[in-house]
């Protein structure tokens, strides 16, 4: 299944797709997109790379097991919900926002961090499942 064209292309596609996935993640606030789709696209980027270059190369590129993204993402999402309780005495998951929108990114608030958490969990889950299955199949 290894073709030179796909292999060469995937090396360029991986960073482009990853940037695209982050774009989709950030875009989700105003337009279609969000952490879930963004995460799936990022996962597809890695899977494509794995298809072209073999699983071991992709794993080497990642340096750590994608499963570690799951607790990190869950922690981030949970903590973004916990922040209002800990620091502002508001109920769990109250939305907090910086008063002024940031350039390029737009308004930044706890929901964005929550979405980043979702993004990381989705990458972690998808890659863990696909890598595990392709290793043992």
């Amino acid at each position: 299944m290894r073709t030179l064209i796909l292999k060469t292309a995937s090396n360029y596609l991986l960073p482009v797709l990853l940037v695209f996935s982050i774009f989709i993640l950030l875009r989700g606030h105003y337009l279609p997109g969000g952490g879930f789709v963004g995460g799936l696209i990022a996962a597809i980027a890695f899977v494509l790379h794995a298809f072209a270059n073999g699983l071991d190369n992709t794993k080497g590129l990642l340096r750590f097991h994608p499963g570690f993204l799951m607790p990190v993402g869950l922690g981030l999402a949970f903590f973004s919900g916990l922040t209002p309780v800990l620091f502002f005495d508001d109920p769990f998951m109250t939305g907090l926002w910086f008063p002024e929108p940031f350039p390029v990114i737009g308004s930044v608030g706890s929901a964005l961090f929550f979405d980043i958490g979702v993004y990381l969990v989705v990458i972690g889950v998808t890659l863990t499942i696909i890598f595990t299955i392709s290793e043992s199949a």
Partner: protein
Amino acid sequence: MLAAILLGFLFAILLVFTGKFFRGKLAVLSAIIPGALFAYFASFIPEIASGEIISRTYQWVPAFGVDLSFKLDGLSLLFSLMITGIGFLVFAYTASYLKGHKYLDRFYGYLSLFMAAMLGLVLSDNIISLFVFWELTSISSFFLIGFNNSNPASRKSALTALGITGFGGFFLLAGALLLGNITGTFTISEMLGMKEAIAGSEYYILAVLFIFVAAFTKSAQFPFHFWLPGAMKAPTPVSTYLHSATMVKAGIYLLMRFTPILGDQEFWNTSLIIVGGITMVYSAIHALFRTDLKGVLAYSTISALGILVFLIGLGTKGAFLAAAVFIIVHALYKATLFLVTGIIDHQTGTRDVTRLGGLRKIMMPVAIAGILAAISSAGIPPSIGFLGKELTYEASAHAETFTVIIVIAIVLTKILLLWAGFVAGIKPFVGKLPEAHKDVKAPGFLMWGPAIILAVLGILFGIFPKLIESALVKPVVLALGADASDYHLALWHGFNTVLLLSGITIAVGILLYFFVKPSIKLENRIGKLEFISPKSILEKGTHYFGVFSAFWTNVFQNGYLRNYVTTIVLFLVVLVSYILFGTAGVTIDYSKLSQVTAYELVVAIILIAGVFYTVFTKSRLAAVAAMGVVGLAICLIFVFYSAPDLAMTQFSIDTLTVILFVLVLYRLPKYLSLSDYKMRIRDGILSVSLGAIICLLALQVLAEPTNSEISDFYAENAYKMAHGKNVVNVILVDFRGADTLIEISVLAIAAIGVFGLLKLRLKSTDRSQ
């Protein structure tokens, strides 16, 4: 106060990363945490003693009335001080007891997890958060009992304990919800004013029963008591801390906490007297038949818990006073005896009391601690145990009905407990030192220090009861809804019936100690009755339940994906058509259907072609690719009907599904084993009927009047309240963020499941090779 509770959790998390520092010489430093907390709670003593109640509220889920509200009153303070104080000693003791253990850091993690959960339990003023902490104590207890997880007996005991206490926890939740339903609040202090309304409610008996089951399972009351002796498989610091001094008293705490709300009713009082009475006598008798020191102590602990339940049931001011004092008495002497037993076990390697003796020659400080604790346990003056016993007798003698039976039961229990205390605290140290133990080494200060501190406190409080009277005991009674300000604790109350009963108890108990020695013969005798014990009955029940579950699982979870799909589809078709044709009737409103455009038609044709190709192709890979085509065609339809978010997600999911299929199929044999003709007809009918039903359902939905209130709300408020213009995403990450949080947790669990299943399977094949 939240910080004080979270400290234990944070330390447990910290240990995950810094475990190796705490595994070695620094282990004893972890005792700083409970020590500091003890000082923190002790600083509240003057305020509480003057009758104040300190409360803090943090909002958690205000929409459901679930707050993190904490209340420190006399009852909470007593428990908090026990948890942190005994915790401090146990943490220090553990550093020496499990010195050099490979998983010492893990042990400390569980212990501090437990400590934090237990503090949360006794400080919660919200019954739901109380329930959460209650479950956390059960879970940490499970980890601690099963700490030696290479031993099957430990694992089994841990599972039994978790099963029983978890079962009770379930009832606590039910009771909490029921009470919340009756009163309209989950805050315990708000329920205080609604006593009459609760007692008059038709659900009163049910609510009380639920609370009872919770308390009885946790506090090991008959017939749920048997998990506690099993829990003695845990390392001794755990038995000291969880299974005698603190966790098992959580049930007692619960009963005391709800006494001012649910108490003072005949059903409440009578049930508690009966259950407590049976438990105290039953398990005190059982203690006679044990040779394992920890077995003796376990049964005497259950008996002591029975006495507490019984005293709460008596429900008089005197009984509350006795219960408050007895909690302190029991925590002090029983923790000491457990620590002493742990030292003996650690140094000699046996807990068999028939093989122990003369150890005073080797470990004098331990012997002193043991003997002092035995004196307190026996209720011999001037120990605090004497005070506790006097008050207990006094309360029993004033019982309104069946006074004689009650007094006989309590005196009998106390006699047997005296015997148990002597066997555990005195017997190992007196007499001749057996040859086998000649070379036993003396324990270090970290081990005997905590034991002797607790033992001396037991005597000190007895001589100077003023030390605890207004600081600890009276605020507890106040929290239970009685005023004891006119009462004074004292060793000497003059010659009266109670003193006579005390004298009889001590004399008969000591005689019993000299005449009945623990022996294997006695232990075997009770072993013959094991088959009718609640434990064996439950174990048999669990066994048959397991057999039934295995049968049931094999019928439905037979491992063939096609059967699962068939079952699900069949069930869905039957259910939906029953509702659709049986009750509602199908009406199709053609006027609401929109015109079909040319490109929709093209997509539909592609879709149908894809479906047919999938069904009739001979190649697996082609079928998968055609499925992909079907998925993409559906995405396009989503796009046409302005659901770009859905389309994007579906698109990515479809891509991944195809990849996943290819990954697996690529390695399967090329040959397609096709199902036979009949089966294909059956599957065809099933699929077509599912499609038809869903189609009819969709048309029917169109005909129903729609309610757009919710979607209007989201559309209107997405930007106003959540600063977002994409309503779908705002719902996901903000309005219904808690759902998403749970969903991603489920995703993570699924991934771990896949990983675990496949990797474990790989490992087992490795082993067989």
